[in-house]
Structure formats: structure tokens, C-alpha cells
């Protein structure tokens, strides 16, 4: 087999059964790999809407990409797909690190875990040798301790994927960690692992990966590498990390603070990428497997009272959710909170967003001192934020238990209109730190995102026009450079549609989305050529983009089985109803009217029904998804 290794590894924790299956040739053409084939697998096993996230029939799938493990630059990423616990709907989360490539070297493109174990276990993969092992000595251990033990038992060259205490405690903010500091963070996939009592997957692989046409493959990979080398976005990511852009975002008054009540922070410097470099905290620039960008950070505090803190990151989102959000405008403060989340296995975005909601609820008197277990919450109090996130991970006390279930459930429990300052949309995922009120393609992308409102199912960064490459992308989509401004509502549906497909194929091949939607060295044209060189499967740019659309449609259809309607494609109440606090777009909202205009166009472009938002039979059949149309028909969910 070329490109792919050709095997799906199945492990059933209920039946204690392990087997492999060949990837059907047709799937490689229709769904390509990773996220794409994951979507097909999840549909096949879990389409029945009675399968909830905590049902033993729910599966969790881990998959590196079609070209992972090669010199294709930044192609080492892994998609994790399951019925998510935060939304109860489709969840794809994607992680960097070195675990996915190792799985592929062990000979597998996908790992599918079925069933639940009655006691803690981990999966050990050493090429063809696969075992379900007792994890009683790992259960309760944090991420660092878990990785250390696994390496002690299975070698320094083994690669680990695991959950921390938060995942064990079925916390919705729990993240699946990979190679220590990388994470499939969003949507609560770690709670699905926790429910299955699956603590970790340790992998070691020694099987080479072959490509059909090595010469051609090397040529295309070189083209991508050189485009990325020259790309200003990629250079910035290497130099300052994802947080490099924060000062600029703040200047646009688009850096959410105090639970989205502010967009601009005076003296923001301590919580930006350059502060890590200048303060001597940045120890190393780090890359995921095969990545030529190297945007990840390893940061340490070496002096003063906090000396000894060391961890991966912090990323843009962490400086937002645990810095500007709760008002911790302090480099070391964010480093400390980041380190706690990386140990306990918490998604910094959700942990930070639920904490901000708790602070505001307390200040409004909706949560009392009794509800907060005595914590006097307020903006800018590091100790209180620290205690809150530790409580979340362990479901400790009244506050920990309330916040551990995420804002969708917490707001229902608390009432008092507390949904109005909960930064979640109807699907229920806590929003990532993008000011959608002043970035309209992001607003639409967040609203229609099948896993909830964040930037990690499609990223429309190009609309900011902040690099020549980004402006070129907007011109390619809309025909005119002038639309490279986030304030327009015109052409946003077109921009979102293009990015959805590009984002999907990027992940299907295993590339990091930064290569194609933040920097632009990897594009549909060179991805198609690379895929053909890797696999020998003829694929044009248009055909590859169509596979992206096909997979996005499966993901949408999956949510339709779970009751998704047009009403689920919205944005948090605050952003739809309260104006931005300051800046050029002061007073701007994501109003329903504005959103409706973009949604109509978006559904039209997808050829979905505008009233319900559901894919039609004709559209599904055109995408070779008749089996999905038939099932939705059975459920009475075809428009």
C-alpha cells in the first residue's frame, strides 16, 4: 500500500477483542483519510441517535493522515472523532505531537476503540502486537506522570496519548493529550475515554511508509516546504508562536477580555508571544512530527518564586482564555495556569471560559459564596482562578462539580438568565477566543461548525487580509481583493465554504491547518498532486475539494440525526445581543438578522434546505452519500 498503510485497527474493550480491517479502496477515493475516513466510520457505527457519548456503543477513532510520516511539511497530525460529550453531537478534534506518525509506523491508519472496560486499561501497540493492559497504576496520575511511566515501561522511543484526572472524572473541559503538551483538546473527547476507562494508548512502530512515486512526491513536498519557508505567516508562527498575533488583535479591539465584555486591554504585552521571548521564558521552539514551521513553545520559569514551572505553550488561546479572559495580565500567571491544565488534562479554552462565566456570575450575585465553596471570585485574581480550575478537574466541591459539566448544563442548573453571559451557542461548546462581532466570516464559520462554536473545523483567518498570501486567497475566492476585510458580510458564505473544504482535506491528508489556512504554502492544487504521488490514486484539485465537501456533509448529517436544526447554527447570546465594547466596531453585534443573511447564502452554496438546514436527498446523492439520505429518510429527517 502506498501513502496509507491500509489498515484499521479495532479494539473492543467490552469484549476484550482486537482485530484489523483493510481500508476499502473506495474510501481512499471518497474520504481520503484521517478526518474523512473517521467521519465515515463514525457514521457507520454510531449513526443511531440513541447512541449517546457515554453509551458503550459510542466509538472513539484516532487517525493520522494519508501522508503522515513523510517529508510532506507539517503532515504529522491526528484527528480524533467520536460522539462528543460537550454537545452530544459530532466531535472531531485534532492534535499535533508525534503519536500519530508512530501509529502509522506501527502499520495502522486508524485506531477504533469500541465498548467500555470495567476497570482502567491502556492499549499497548508494538507493530503487530496489540494488547489491552491493566492501567490501575496509571489511573489518577497526571499527564506528566503517565507519560513518564509509559516511557519507563515501553521505552523512551514509545509515544503516548492519554487523559489526565479531568478525563477520568468525566469533565467536559477535559482534553486528550498527545506527546505530553499537544492536545485534541476541545469537545470533551477525554471524557469519552474516561467513560471507557481508557487511560492511554502507547505506540511503537517500525514499519516504513512507502509512496507510489517518490521522486514526484519529493518535488511536491519541496514546493510546499519552500512556499512555507517564504510565507510571512509561517515565519511569524515560528518566531513568536500562535500568541505572536495577540498585540495586533488587541489593537483591533478584538481580544476578548472579562468574559467578552472588553475587546481592548491596556498594557497587554505580558500576555503576548513576544513577552515569552523577551522575558526569557521561551526555552525552545518545538515542532510536531515532520513540521517545518515549529510554532509550538516550551516555556519555563527559571527565577523567582515561581521557578520550576515548565510546560508546552502557552498558545494564543491560553493567553486569551486564562489570561485576558479572567484578567490575568501576567506572563507568569498564565504560565502557571497553563502548566496546571497540561498536567490535569484540561482544555485551556473551556477551562478558562467556564471560569470567566463563574466570575461574572459571582459578581452578579447569581452564584453565592456558598456556591463557590468560599472563593471570592473576581477579575485578575490568580489564586482564585487556579483553585477554580483545579476544582473543575477533580469535580471538587459545589463549584467544581457545577463547572465540570460545562456551561450548557451549568446555565440550566443555575438559571437566572445566566445563559446570557455564557459564551456558548445552541450546540453548547465554549467559544474560542475570537471576537466574532467584528469578524463576520468567523461568525458564520463558528455558527455552522458541527462541533460547536470555535475555529477548529474551519478557520477563515484570510478574511483579515493580514499577509499578501491571505489577500491572494480572498481574491481567489471572491474575485476581488477588497473583500479581504473582516467587517463585510458580503462573500462571507463563499469564504467559509471554501475554507471548510480546504480545512477538511488538509486534515484528511494529515497536514496542520496552519499550512493552508494561516500560512498558505499548502493548497488544494499541491495537495491533490501530492496525494496522487503518494497513493497512485488520480485526484484533481476539484475532486479533492469535493471530498472535503462530502465529509463536511457527513458531519452535518450526523448532527441532523441528533436533532440539529437551523436554530443550532447560532452564536452566544451576548455576542448576538450586546455590542462590542470599544474600537472601530463599537456597538457591533452578531445579530440574528445579519447571521440569517449569511446562513441563507451558506445553505444555498451547500445545496441544503434553508428552513431546516438539512442536506437534501439530491445533494446527498450527488455526493455519493445515498446511504445517508436513506437513513435520514428513515428518521424522517430529509427536508
Amino acid at each position, binding site marked *: 500500500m502506498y501513502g496509507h498503510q491500509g489498515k484499521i485497527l479495532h479494539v473492543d474493550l467490552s469484549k476484550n477483542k482486537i482485530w484489523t480491517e483493510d481500508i476499502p479502496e473506495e474510501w481512499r477515493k471518497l474520504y481520503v483519510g484521517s478526518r474523512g475516513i473517521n467521519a465515515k466510520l463514525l457514521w457507520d457505527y454510531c449513526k443511531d441517535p440513541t447512541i449517546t457519548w457515554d453509551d458503550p456503543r459510542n466509538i472513539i477513532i484516532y487517525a493520522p493522515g494519508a501522508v503522515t510520516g513523510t517529508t510532506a511539511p507539517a503532515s504529522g497530525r491526528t484527528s480524533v472523532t467520536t460522539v462528543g460529550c460537550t454537545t452530544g453531537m459530532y466531535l472531531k478534534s485534532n492534535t499535533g505531537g508525534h503519536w500519530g506518525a508512530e501509529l502509522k509506523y506501527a502499520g495502522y491508519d486508524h485506531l477504533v476503540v469500541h465498548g467500555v472496560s470495567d476497570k482502567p486499561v491502556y492499549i499497548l501497540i508494538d507493530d503487530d502486537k496489540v494488547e489491552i493492559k491493566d492501567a490501575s497504576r496509571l489511573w489518577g496520575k497526571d499527564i506528566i506522570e503517565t507519560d513518564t511511566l509509559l516511557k519507563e515501561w515501553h521505552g523512551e522511543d514509545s509515544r503516548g496519548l492519554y487523559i489526565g484526572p479531568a478525563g477520568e472524572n468525566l469533565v467536559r473541559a477535559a482534553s486528550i493529550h498527545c506527546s505530553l503538551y499537544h492536545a485534541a483538546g476541545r469537545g470533551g473527547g477525554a471524557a469519552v475515554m474516561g467513560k471507557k476507562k481508557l487511560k492511554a494508548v502507547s505506540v511503537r512502530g517500525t514499519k516504513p511508509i512507502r*509512496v507510489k512515486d517518490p521522486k514526484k512526491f519529493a518535488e511536491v513536498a519541496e514546493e510546499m516546504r519552500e512556499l512555507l519557508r517564504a510565507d510571512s505567516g509561517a515565519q511569524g508562527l515560528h518566531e513568536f508562536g500562535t500568541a505572536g498575533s495577540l498585540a495586533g488583535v488587541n489593537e483591533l479591539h478584538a481580544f476578548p477580555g472579562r468574559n467578552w465584555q472588553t475587546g481592548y486591554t491596556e498594557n497587554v504585552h505580558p500576555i503576548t508571544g513576544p513577552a515569552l521571548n523577551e522575558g526569557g521564558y521561551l526555552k525552545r521552539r518545538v515542532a510536531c512530527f515532520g*513540521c517545518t514551521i515549529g510554532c509550538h513553545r516550551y516555556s519555563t520559569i527559571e527565577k523567582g518564586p515561581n521557578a520550576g514551572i515548565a510546560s508546552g505553550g502557552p498558545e494564543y488561546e491560553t493567553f486569551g482564555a486564562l489570561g485576558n479572559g479572567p484578567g490575568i495580565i501576567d506572563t507568569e500567571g498564565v504560565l502557571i495556569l497553563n502548566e496546571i491544565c497540561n498536567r490535569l488534562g484540561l482544555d485551556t479554552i473551556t477551562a478558562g471560559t467556564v471560569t470567566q462565566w463563574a466570575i461574572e456570575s459571582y459578581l452578579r450575585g447569581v452564584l453565592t459564596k456558598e456556591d463557590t465553596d468560599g472563593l471570592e471570585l473576581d477579575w485578575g485574581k490568580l489564586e482564585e482562578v487556579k483553585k477554580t480550575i483545579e476544582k473543575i478537574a477533580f469535580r471538587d466541591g459545589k463549584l467544581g462539580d457545577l463547572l465540570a459539566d460545562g456551561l450548557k448544563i451549568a446555565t440550566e442548573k443555575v438559571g437566572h438568565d445566566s445563559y446570557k453571559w455564557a459564551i456558548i451557542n445552541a450546540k453548547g461548546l465554549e467559544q474560542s477566543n475570537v471576537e466574532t462581532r467584528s469578524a463576520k466570516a468567523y461568525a458564520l464559520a463558528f455558527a455552522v461548525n458541527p462541533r460547536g462554536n470555535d475555529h477548529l473545523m474551519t478557520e477563515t483567518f484570510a478574511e483579515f487580509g493580514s499577509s499578501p498570501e491571505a489577500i491572494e486567497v480572498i481574491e481567489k475566492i471572491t474575485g476581488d481583493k477588497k473583500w479581504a476585510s473582516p467587517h463585510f458580510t458580503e462573500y462571507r458564505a463563499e469564504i467559509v465554504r471554501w475554507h471548510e473544504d480546504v480545512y477538511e482535506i488538509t486534515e484528511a491528508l494529515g497536514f496542520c491547518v496552519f499550512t493552508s489556512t494561516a500560512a498558505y504554502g499548502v493548497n488544494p492544487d499541491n495537495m491533490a498532486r501530492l496525494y496522487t504521488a503518494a497513493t497512485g490514486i488520480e485526484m484533481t484539485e476539484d475532486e479533492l475539494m469535493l471530498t472535503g465537501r462530502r465529509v463536511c456533509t457527513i458531519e452535518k448529517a450526523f448532527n441532523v440525526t441528533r436533532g440539529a436544526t437551523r436554530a443550532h447554527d447560532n452564536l452566544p447570546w451576548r455576542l448576538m445581543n450586546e455590542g462590542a465594547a470599544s474600537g472601530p466596531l463599537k456597538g457591533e453585534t452578531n445579530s440574528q438578522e445579519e447571521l440569517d443573511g449569511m446562513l441563507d447564502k451558506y445553505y444555498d452554496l451547500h445545496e441544503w434546505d434553508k428552513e431546516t438546514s438539512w442536506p437534501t436527498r439530491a445533494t446527498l446523492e450527488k455526493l455519493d452519500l445515498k446511504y445517508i439520505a436513506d437513513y435520514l429518510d428513515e428518521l424522517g429527517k430529509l427536508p
Partner: protein
Amino acid sequence: MEKLLLVDMDKCTGCKQCSLACSLIKEDLFDLARGRIKVLKKEDIALGVQLLCEQCDAHPCIDACSDGALSRDEATGIITVDAEICTECGSCVEACPYYGIRLHPETNIPMICDLCGGDPYCAKHCVPGAISWVDKTDDLLRDKKKLRSARMAMYRTVKKEAEK
């Protein structure tokens, strides 16, 4: 002009493009174990230490081979293995002071970096500039040795810690 390969641990992001590139150019496939360059990765401290043949003046690998399978090009310092003579004993691996030799996973013949005959393929893949192929000057030769010493010191520290 004579060139030399500068290998800087501090710029290494641990991505392993160099090993992948090496296995591709040498064997038309991707297998880290077939890279003539290896990156020792220590995930907890985000460290990558590159290990490869340094074309050193002392070349103890040659003396270690009792069968005389290894020879050295005096001009370039490049070591060549005669696979017909090699008994796959691994003495050269043990002798290398830079941990730069490994046995091929299938043939067991030692794999030794040959600088791709004067155009190292790995260097083209190292975008962060941790591996660079530069014109040789006295200053750069000194830098090369300094960088190498730092890598070896780190390698030995990491190994010592692992043995604890």
C-alpha cells in the same frame, strides 16, 4: 570552496524532517530507523539532539573494524562501508564517539552519513536552520566543533539520567 555541515541543537525543533529526508534519498521510503542522521528526542523537555557521522579526524570506527570493511576518503573525511566485507558485528557503532553510526534495520550493515556526496539532502529540509551546509572558514570550523561538543554533552547527560 570546501563546505561543512553545521549542526545546532538549540535550533532543532525535533521535527525529524532530516531523518525522513535521509531515508527517502537513500532508500525511496520513509523510515526513521534508516536515516543516517538520527534525532534523539526527549519529549518532556522538548529537546532534539542530532546524531550523525562527523567525518572526524580520529575516525576510531576504522580501527575498530577488524575486517577492514571501512575506508575513509582523505579529502572529504567520508567513511564508506564495504558491504561484502562487513560482518555486521557492530564494532564501529560502539567505537563512534559521536553516536553517529547505526545498523540498517534489514541488512544490519552500518549506515554512515556520506554528506550525499557533497550536497546534503537533510540540510535542504531543515527550515529552522539547525542543519546548514556552509562554506568552510576557520571560524565556522570552530563553531562546528563547539556545537558538536554541546550536543555530545547533552546526549551523555540525557543517557545518564535515563540510566538512573
